[in-house]
């Protein structure tokens, strides 16, 4: 890294942060220190960049990551009401993770599924034409699967 210019090193910041988040699901404090050291930049510089961009999170995501799209088409079709209901149901605000670590909830600006609005993204799978009922069913099915997995895990031990 020594022979790289400061500009070359700076260019690495965002791709590196993206890779860290890809692997860990978030940007831990230690990763910023590590990256600052590696790229010969200050921690402030790294955090300054990281905190500017919406995609980076600094707390671990839940086991299931639910993103509710609030693009314009989704807003017009009731995406904000879906978010309000889900936020109430999970007992967390957008951006937070439930205390049992099972769900994290996020609002997202647009996932490009506007034609089938409102859209939600659960664990990277996009679901279009979401209704209050279909979203409840989706979450209920995840709950059931998790319970089943837990049970079989308990049984095999």
């Amino acid at each position, binding site marked *: 890294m020594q022979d790289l210019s400061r500009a070359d090193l700076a260019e690495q910041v965002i791709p590196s942060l993206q890779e860290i988040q890809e692997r860990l699901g978030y940007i831990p404090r230690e990763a910023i220190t590590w990256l600052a050291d590696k790229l010969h930049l200050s921690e402030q510089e790294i955090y300054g960049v990281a905190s500017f*961009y919406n995609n980076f999170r600094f707390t671990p995501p839940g086991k299931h990551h639910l993103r509710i799209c609030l693009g314009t088409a989704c807003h017009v079709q009731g995406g904000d009401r879906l978010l309000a209901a889900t936020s*109430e149901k999970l007992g967390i605000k957008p951006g937070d993770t439930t205390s049992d670590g099972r769900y994290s909830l996020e609002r997202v600006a647009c996932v490009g*599924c506007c034609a089938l609005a409102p859209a939600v993204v659960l664990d990277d799978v996009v679901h279009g034409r979401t209704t209050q009922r279909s979203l409840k069913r989706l979450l209920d099915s995840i709950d059931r699967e998790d319970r089943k997995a837990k049970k079989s895990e308990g049984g095999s031990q």
Partner: protein
Amino acid sequence: MNPGIESEQSILEIRVCRGTGCESARANQLLEALNKEVADKGLEDKVRIKTIGCHGFCEQGPVITVEPEGLFYCKVDEKDIKEIVESHIIGGKPVERLFYTEPATGEIISKYEDIPFYKGQKKVVLRNCGEIDPGSIDEYIEKGGYDGLKKALLEMKPEQVINQVLKSGLRGRGGAGFPTGLKWKFGRGSKSDKKYVICNADEGDPGAFMDGAILVADPHAVLEGLIAAAYSIGADEGFVYVRHEYPQAVDSIKKAIIDSRKRGFLGKDILGSGFSFDLSVKEGAGAFVCGEETALMTSIEGNRGTPRPRPPFPTDSGLWGKPTCINNVKTLATIPIILRKGAEWFASIGTEKSKGTAIFSLTGKVKNTGLVEVPMGTTLRHIIFNVGGGIQGDAKFKAVQTGGPSGGCLPADKLDLPVDYDSLTQAGTIMGSGGMIVMDETTCMVDVARYFLSFTQAESCGKCTPCRMGTLEMLRILDKIKSGNGEEGDIEKLQEIAITVKEGSLCGLGQTAPNPVLTTIRYFRDEYEAHIRDKFCPAEVCKALIKYVVVPEKCIGCGACLRICPANAITGKKNEVHVISDELCIKCGACFEVCPPKASAIDKIPAHHGGGH
């Protein structure tokens, strides 16, 4: 004629759309089921299954087309696959129940070219979308792909290419409408040992998906355009800056780059022309402002994506201080066909000042949502009512929004406005990148204005005070109005701050952020006044001004509302009338949605009118 395999030697091509819309409707499962069914029946030699990018008619997704007849199956379910294979592929009898039914006439239409949604369009830039397998460079080449580039590189000087683009009249499709050829000319004219080209695929505009769809459906067209741009201005390095929120688009363009390099369209001495150029992909990290060209470059350099003043323009001093030419995805995707068919041909489409076609993602309360391309100058009415099929549930049209957070809302009396850069600007909105959101009487215009402003306020990078503080102050006033605490003078205050924000901001974000507020005041002032004076939301959207109640005479006590209510605000025994607690209700409308239509016992009423309005 028997279109099945019984007829001699006809190989059917089954195309499965995997655009974002169809994918969200589980197109991947369809594809799996189709592959399995074809393999199980040993039909691999008789049919060819191919995946395509966005076919356009997302509303009808998942979509499957069968070629060469051009048959169109819509809303296909995994369960339908067996029948398609057995009846259509083996038996030669297409599955009629999966054909499209035109709602207006009840007519069943088998071919997509006969469906009004497609008939009302002119596919120029989107010609390959839904036609070719985006993962196959060969299919792109078969359709004449890279021919334009060959011509440019081997037969034309850079200046001639620029002249061709200038003559075509192509204007930037990112929204601002700057003449593309002129931008290239400036890039060419800048003297430097190093120049860059960038494809701006940071489609941050919420409610728009055109650029993402093109990258997924026809990535080589974008590459071909970008390589031609690089040749024209004399750049040897380029970037595609694409939204991280579009994983499909990222994969698609990355694969296209690899394939293109293998065929010698990228790299050293391209096609033996002596011209060398290569490029890489940069993923955005979720900042709307990075769609602005100077902020985008700052972001590639690895910094907080804040814009900087222009001049100097990027064509003089851009990425790392070097001359840089930035073009939108659609602009670049238009270049190959201009090179191939000529500037005159392209300029014959459209209006005097806006040449070619306009691409929109048509969404909102319109029947036929999807990806749409029409000649410039087409009226809004044609797009919304002919292509779009009118308003969902035959409700009343209220407004159409173009230009995203930088644009505005136009009312019904502007429906005959031709869609081109200048007409839309005159009406107070902008062409924008292609988001077109249709609204009906259930959309509150104050709420829409507030929605956009909350977006731009959150996305303001904070560099310019008028944008940072002005949008926040405007947002506060809108919140006040929406919550029923609006006062006389608030509208004027909004207008006054709007001017400051527009005039005192460096980049397009701040300069245009007030537009949704200004246009809604201009065209829907009465709605603002109803909120302020009567504490009444005509569209029944603003939460503080409505409440949900159970109509006792209608309630059948089924418990559907009680079970879905996330706030436990509903009580009532089975078969008895249910009651909603005003204190606990969060007004998410879940009860309203699930109440069985035969009962329709949940009512939305004005909050301050005690039920009697």
